[in-house]
């Protein structure tokens, strides 16, 4: 009775079981002055626990024939394994051991701080358009530190992180009452539940974690920011619009509107900017991880445009696409197509989601988020209906209400000139 929620989703498709543990803490609400800490902490969770010291977590899963990983998101952090189903008990033992008693030392922390810095370099600092726009946009778009800070972490903050911070974060947020355990695939529900009880049951509950309020003050003006592009050759623009509250009727309509705008090569933005006007080389984006966030978020368009067009010309072409939807709405034919595609995509999300080698990732992710945010994992069976019920009128209404300059932020990422580069 420690408050850990357990969700089991059995099937007999393959002799493989997927296990996930989700904690309701992500980088949004990590401690101030410790940007990047939630992610650094995620790395520490692979560094050893009381009965499984450093390197044993990885070794135990790989040598059972399985794969494992973790990821830090806005509002949750997950740890997951896909293994042949004969390793289920071992995986549950391992996840319970690190939930109960993380055991890391200074050497582990220094080691993973170095690894994380190389991760930031390989994904952001040493890549063309690294971090664009997911790291560039928040400080421009938001005013509450929770939403606006550098989620990968400033190196000074990473250096300042101590073992005491690690222990405190663990005691505060990594308590069973702030988590959900998921077991999917080749498992008999009663057996899965019994094993969950055996290994996780003895872990004591913790105090209910404190959560800072991530609400944003009302936005009344368009916001703009500029970032230098060190490597890339093309100017880039990101445009983000804050979304309606999740699971409201406006939100369902907005998500389908997002598909009308960004749904691949048939999407209006790609069609207009890349195919028709040929201003942009890339124009894509949308709501990232529709079901996986629980605070202020945006629908973000990402455009790499040809240097012969100015940023303002590019933006004008983008705005024209939105104006058309605001004024004329979308046709019934287009809406019907969007719904078929959305339904089809939803099935694929449930089946896979992280390539062929992490089966059921999508189903796990949705069950976890619906449990932690809504206390209602069954939403996975019904949420599709909300999208299929959206009308043309609702789409036009949200287009007018949300796609306004006062609800958006722009980031211009501009290549440094060749001459400046030579001089540097």
């Amino acid at each position, binding site marked *: 009775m420690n408050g850990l929620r357990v969700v089991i989703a059995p099937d007999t498709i393959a002799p493989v079981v997927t296990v996930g543990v989700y904690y309701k803490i992500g980088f949004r609400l990590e401690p101030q002055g410790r940007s990047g800490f939630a992610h650094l902490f995620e790395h520490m969770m692979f560094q050893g626990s009381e009965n499984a010291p450093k*390197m044993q977590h990885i070794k*135990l899963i790989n040598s059972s024939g*399985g794969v494992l990983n973790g990821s830090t998101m806005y509002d949750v952090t997950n740890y997951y394994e896909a293994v042949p189903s004969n390793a289920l008990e071992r995986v549950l033992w391992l996840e319970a051991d690190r939930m109960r008693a993380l055991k890391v030392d200074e050497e582990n922390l220094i080691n993973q701080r170095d690894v994380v*810095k190389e991760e930031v370099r390989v994904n952001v600092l040493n890549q*063309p358009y690294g971090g664009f726009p997911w790291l560039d946009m928040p400080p421009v778009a938001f005013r509450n530190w929770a939403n606006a800070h550098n989620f990968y972490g400033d190196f000074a903050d990473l250096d300042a992180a101590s073992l005491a911070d690690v222990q405190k974060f663990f005691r505060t947020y990594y308590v069973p009452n702030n988590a959900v355990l998921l077991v999917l695939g080749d498992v008999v529900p009663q057996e899965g539940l019994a094993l969950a009880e055996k290994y996780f049951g003895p872990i004591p509950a913790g105090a209910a974690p404190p959560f800072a309020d991530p609400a944003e003050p009302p936005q009344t003006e368009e916001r703009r920011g500029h970032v230098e592009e060190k490597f890339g050759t093309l100017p880039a623009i990101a445009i983000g619009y804050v979304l309606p509250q999740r699971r409201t009727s406006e939100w369902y309509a907005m998500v389908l509107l997002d598909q009308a705008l960004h749904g691949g090569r048939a999407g209006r933005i790609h069609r207009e900017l890349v195919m028709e006007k040929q201003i942009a080389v890339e124009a894509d984006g949308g709501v990232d991880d529709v079901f996986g966030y629980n605070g202020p978020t945006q629908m973000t368009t990402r455009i790499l445009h040809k240097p012969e067009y100015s940023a303002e010309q590019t933006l004008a072409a983008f705005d024209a696409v939105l104006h058309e939807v605001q004024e004329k709405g979308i046709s019934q034919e287009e809406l019907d197509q969007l719904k078929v595609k959305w339904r089809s995509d939803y099935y694929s999300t449930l089946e896979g989601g992280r390539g062929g080698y992490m089966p059921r990732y999508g189903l796990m992710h949705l069950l976890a988020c619906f449990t932690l945010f809504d206390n209602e994992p069954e939403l996975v069976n019904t949420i599709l209906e909300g999208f299929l019920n959206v009308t043309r009128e609702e789409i036009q209404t949200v287009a007018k209400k949300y796609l306004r300059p006062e609800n958006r932020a722009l980031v211009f990422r501009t290549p440094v000139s060749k001459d400046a580069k030579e001089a540097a």
Partner: protein
Amino acid sequence: MATRAPEMAIGAPALTPERPVTWPKRTRARLSNGLQVVLAEAHSIPKFHGELFFRAGEALVSDRSVGLAEMTSTVLRTGTTKRTSRQIEEDLRRLGADLGASAGQDTSAISFAGLSEFAEPLLQLVNELSRQASFPESEFERERRQKLEEVKLERTSPGFLAGERLRKVLFGAHPYARVSPSEEQVAAYRREDLESVYREIYTPENALLVLVGDFEPQAMLKIAEKIFGDWEGKKPAAKEAPAPPQLRGRRVYLVHNPGSVQTQILAGCHAITRKHPEWIRLGLANSLYGGAFNSRLVMNIREDKGYTYSPRSGVTPLLQHGYFSVSAAVRNDVVAASLTEIFYELDKLRSLPVPAAELADAQNYLTGVFSMGLATQEGLLAQFSTAELHELPEDYLETYRDKVRALTSTDLISTARKYFDSANLQIVVVGDRAQIEEQAGLFGEVEAYDNQGKRISA
């Protein structure tokens, strides 16, 4: 070398008896025009996944210009004699479908996935793209201009620059050395060139159709015959390619990327194709070396030393030649230290027998991960396609796990000695020259290039 002895886990539950791993039955057939078909049921979701492969790609045509096969695949989805580009994209959405067209060195392919209820119209569209693409002038022109921007852009990516240089070094005059076109080559592309590539490569005799998903195989086979059966065409004549160079001794190829705050290391040597009888043992040796999270290289330069986030090794199985490579993006001040460990771990596998427990762990890993592919339509499609395209034995999937389990420590040491050719490994480093040249030079004579691929002097 690890500075800290690994500790053991205490009280980890044992594995329970294994559940049988059963691959779905494949229906293999040849349509009346020679088109080869492989079908398998998988009812995980009410969808199906498919891929129509053509057994030729860049390597067949890159003596005309680099990137022509890829450009052909890009433009073919932009118009047919019956549909415009916009209609194609909207029809896909109407069918709840995704579609991609691409070309590699050895194959060109149209991959697709959609709702089972719309299988027939989706296959009709795939058929149209394969036979009646019209290569509209305006679409071609737009894609060519897009490609011009893309080839400029890719030269700013360290991973691309490293991969391109290693291919050039390993393959010399062989077509596999040609990775991506220059701006001049793209500027000179002509629509007619794409049309002739299309006519040569996209033929039924050259094709393999793989379908996996929620359908009944015999019914699906009938649909395939109805749609593709009246298509005619011979496969293109095979072409002799020059042999890749025999590379003796280590050399260092430095690609100068000004302002780099990290160094991309990529080192490699020739190995074997997937069809080779020693492929499976090389796969096991690779997984011990750097092919798994739990591998020696990852434990050493990531988990012990913190030099890098994502070190890995792998064998790239092109159809005519395979090659082994190891990569890591490392801190600029530990380039020499990282290369030292990369060689140390290679040489250790060449010199010392793998302990029995470690061997068993690696065997479990490979056999377990192999069966993960069973759980999704996409995973099954990938496995079936690989087996067909690489002409592996019919029971390859069913016997793979037993073959992995039969390998011994002696097999591994001989495999490592043969294919982890550390004395002749070719080393590419991409980074800021001033910060890394001296370190890289400790491992061999340095040839420096700029990020446009031009040799630069000492």
